[in-house]
């Protein structure tokens, strides 16, 4: 092989791949700044002739963008807080506390990971309807309050907490809850951050369940609202692109900031199979 050709090939292919990966995202951003109708031209324009925020103004003043953004933020925050408390406590207990049937229950939970969540959706809907939670955020938060994957992630990490440390705290007279709050939680910090990023991204991006359980338009999250808007406004390319930017930019930024923590969760999660 000609020397110098191989590096060119490898880097060239990666550059091509990165272009394909990023082009739709960059074009989304560019088209969101175009004047209405500008993107529908041949050849398709790459950049706006004159960048404008008109689509964002329209999105936030007339299309309910502010409301959906607030809904998504509130719901993501609520699910993350609730499910972190529940999963961290359970993951810690499965790793470090003794109770009857602990290992058998844990194995059973792992076994149920093969069941797709969608199988439960119809009865879950009926149950939530019975509880008066359909068409409320409770209907999204309550079923998401515990996650087997989250418990697994915390448990694997918590196994490495030295038991001596816990014994020492107990001898000093710390109750189980004090021990958890002042020793365990700080020790689990890295995995808590990882699980928080995972939960935030998952909740923000979730589509099917919020689509089913939230029927009142005022409660829509960004993905549900965007899907419904895009069915109505097929012609308003630029407006839809602004909606897509508002929907996906927060999670992209969150990922860029906390990339390492996210990848850690991804690696740990891939062992679950």
């Amino acid at each position: 092989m000609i020397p110098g050709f191989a590096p060119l090939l490898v880097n060239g292919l990666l550059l091509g791949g990165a272009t394909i990966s990023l082009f739709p995202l960059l074009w989304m951003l560019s088209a969101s700044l175009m004047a209405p109708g500008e993107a529908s031209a041949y050849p398709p324009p790459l950049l706006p002739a004159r960048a404008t925020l008109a689509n964002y103004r329209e999105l936030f003043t007339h299309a309910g963008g502010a409301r959906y953004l607030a809904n998504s933020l509130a719901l993501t925050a609520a699910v993350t807080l609730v499910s972190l408390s529940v999963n961290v406590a359970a993951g810690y207990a499965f790793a470090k506390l003794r109770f009857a049937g602990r290992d058998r229950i844990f194995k059973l939970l792992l076994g149920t990971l093969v069941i797709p969540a969608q199988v439960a959706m119809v009865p879950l809907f009926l149950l939530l309807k019975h509880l008066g939670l359909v068409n409320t955020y409770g209907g999204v938060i309550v079923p998401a309050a515990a996650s087997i994957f989250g418990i697994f992630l915390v448990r694997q990490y918590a196994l490495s907490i030295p038991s001596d440390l816990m014994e020492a705290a107990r001898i000093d007279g710390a109750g189980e809850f004090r021990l958890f709050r002042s020793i365990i939680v700080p020790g689990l910090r890295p995995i808590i951050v990882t699980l928080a990023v995972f939960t935030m991204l998952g909740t923000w991006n979730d589509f099917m369940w919020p689509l089913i359980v939230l029927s009142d338009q005022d409660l829509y999250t960004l993905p549900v609202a965007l899907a419904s808007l895009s069915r109505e406004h097929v012609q308003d390319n630029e407006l839809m692109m602004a909606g897509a930017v508002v929907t996906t930019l927060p999670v992209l930024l969150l990922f860029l900031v906390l990339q390492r923590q996210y990848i850690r969760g991804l690696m740990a999660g891939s062992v679950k199979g």
Partner: protein
Amino acid sequence: MRLPGAAWGFVAPALLVIAVFFLIPVLAALALSFTDFDLYALADVANLRLVGLRNYARLLEKPLFWQALGNTLYFAIVGVPLSIVVSFGAALLLHSRLVRFRSFFRTALFAPVVTTLVAVAVVWRYLFDTRYGWLNYTLGSLGIRPIDWLGDPHWAMPAIIVFAVWKSFGYNMIILLAGLQSIPDALYEAARIDGASSWRQFRDVTLPMLAPIVVMVSILTTAGYFQLFAEPYVMTQGGPLQSTVSVLYLMYEEGFKWWNLGSASAVAFVLFLLIFALTVLQLRLARWEEAA
């Protein structure tokens, strides 16, 4: 002094939520699939009747069910291998010693994974536009005539596959890259000393060392691809001519559009059995391959 009560205090909330809002509904779905639960039963449970296997029998007679099954299989049979090959190729490139700006490339290739599916599906719908879309424009510059990607029943599923691979290959890429990085250098060293070419090194060191990871990745990806829903919901609404109706899309329409909840539960169970069977099959194949 160790109170078992305290331990239960820590796990009880999680177990309660999982049992009440996941495990019991799964069992209830099975029970529901043997009933004619519909809009009338939704109004008054007294209208509910047991119908045995009739939901399943009706399903098997329904052309749309077979179409949805066929579409989903098409999506998975083409999409899963394609996505794993792309992931593997990207991982190999990123693992190469010759790469510059590795972390930039890794982040760029992974970025679509964290984007919101609905948002990027809306974006791709415009990229697929017959007249003004970038895809046809790019293909046009290569002399290929415009394709009606989302409007032609022959092209709608390939378009969704292209989109799905773009969206998801980065996930497996990261896992495979970690696998490549965990192969000890000594193995390659030994192969080189034995005079193995790069290709032989790839075939005799890289592939066998990665095989367990590839099996796992393919099981998880298959399960994921069988859950196709949001892509057709946003991009094609199941059309054209129902060429992109997936099993889950059918369940959604049966259950939450027509409120045939008994029949929707039957669809959900068929999907579960299918995913379960494929998981077992892939594990068996992997073991058989290993033994051979």
